[in-house]
């Protein structure tokens, strides 16, 4: 997949769950090819001995006491839902299985 082929883009779009049109796939394959080439520059300095930084400001243990706090009501939860049955969110039939 090092080449940004249309198939590679389609595969990524599947993982990202976006139904790209063929036109979009073709355009993105071109754009992303150039972009990936540009960002590959990071590899030239990212040597073994350099540790990664995932938090810019490292903090110690950040833990919460096990005490119940404010919750949402069911009405609040469902207020923005595209579809629901009054207490639960409704979705169309599911094809896949849980992971």
């Amino acid at each position, binding site marked *: 997949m090092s080449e940004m082929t249309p198939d590679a883009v389609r595969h990524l779009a599947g*993982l990202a769950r976006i139904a790209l049109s063929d036109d979009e796939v073709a355009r993105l394959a071109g754009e992303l090819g150039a972009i990936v080439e540009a960002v590959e520059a990071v590899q030239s300095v990212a040597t073994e001995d350099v540790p990664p930084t995932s938090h810019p400001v490292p903090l110690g243990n950040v833990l*919460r006491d*096990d005490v119940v706090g404010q919750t949402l009501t069911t009405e609040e939860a469902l207020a923005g839902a595209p579809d629901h049955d009054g207490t639960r969110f409704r979705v169309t039939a*599911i094809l896949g299985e849980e992971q």
Partner: protein
Amino acid sequence: MAKDQLMDLEKALELYEPVLGFEVHVELSTQTKMFSAAPNPAAMDEAAIEPNTCITPLCLGLPGSLPVVNRTAVEYSISLGLALGCDIAPVSRFARKNYFYPDLAKNYQISQYDEPIAFEGSVSVEMDDGTLVEVPIERAHMEEDAGKLTHVGGATGRIQGAEYSLVDYNRAGVPLVEIVTKPIEGMEGRAGELGRAYVSTIRDIVRNLGISHARMERGNLRCDANVSLRPRGESAYGTRTETKNVNSFRSIERAVLYEIRRQAAILADGGTITQETRHWHEDTGVTSPGRPKSDADDYRYFPEPDLLPVEASAEWVATLKAALPESPVLMRRRLRAEWGFSDVDFQAIVNAGLITEVKATIDAGVEAPAARKWWMGEISRIANDRDVEPSSLVSPDEIKALQSLVDQGTLTDKLAREVLLGMIDGEGTPEEIVAARGLEVVSDDGALMAAIDEALAADPDVLDKIREGKVQAAGAIIGAVMKAMKGQADAARVRELIIERAGAS
């Protein structure tokens, strides 16, 4: 669905060695969820909770919501790691596991990936015949549970053929520890039994730690069983399947044996095993194919940027280690030896889940047989009648107080049972109840003798029979005296007095 070909177990084991692995998910019973302050349904009576009520913005994955780690969940996880004999990582990290599914609100699960909190352990598992098997543990990591789907339309709530599904996010974010074993070899014909014994050992451990309700039927404890077969004489593992949805101890055993027989039939036929998830069907006792492993399993793990690493200092771990109770397996083996019960009697206590109570009662100073008798007898009976937990009725110290009165001869067993009922109903201490109900044993020999003489007068042959050696003839007189005394006499003392009378005249 075509029926699977199955090979005889014996034949299968002749040709192949089963290799097992288990992934057990334990729902922790903290007050709140793993990353949010929503109430934790796994610590509550889940059946009584309305859908989508135990939720915060995070449980719904609302834009802008953020996770904060529950300290108690971390402590429970460390304790569990220690109980599994694991090393605790000084620094462990949360990671995002990315995949889309409607029950996963954020469409990523916050889990741990290459830096789990606990790793490299071992658990002693007791088999049915009392032998111990060491199950090697690879890791135990912290993560969050997903919501619950209900499939509507189509057959029996199955996902296939459903018209639509409903999502309840109450369970989303419930703290989980996932315990992963290393491959377990050499179990041969006991492979299924080991699966059952292993998961029930995990259940005992987490209950003993008080960190999970561990009700398998409610999903507090869930097991995925990995099975592969290795042809005899080869060293490489075969392709494995992962059977999910095994919701009872017995079905773990059955599912493992089923997979051994199914895979053996395929391999012997020259076929290959598909690496896939399979589903166990409790009703029919078979597994069915689920999702094959594929490119879609690219979970794109990366360190969770919204959370800092968890640092388990040596002091913190030492404190939790010091508070760890003895392992249930080892404790059971020790107590069996100490208490001297028969295997049957001991196993009955284990099965009744009353080991802790019996132990505490013995620790309070009651002799082992008496402690067993109280808990397995009258207390269990009352608990059963009233549909409550035996431990909720009476404390080990109260049993001690009651039994002391029996030991002193103040109460007979029968009277003591009456007093127990009073204690359970809140009438006071055993002494108070004895006094209030006038239940004390009549220990005045004069009064007893008067009653004996009265009974003998009605049945004068008895003394002769006793003198002829037919001691059992005293029974009738004892019965009459006990009746006259309204049960408040010590039968043994009455018997002594009758024999005395026979000798004296």
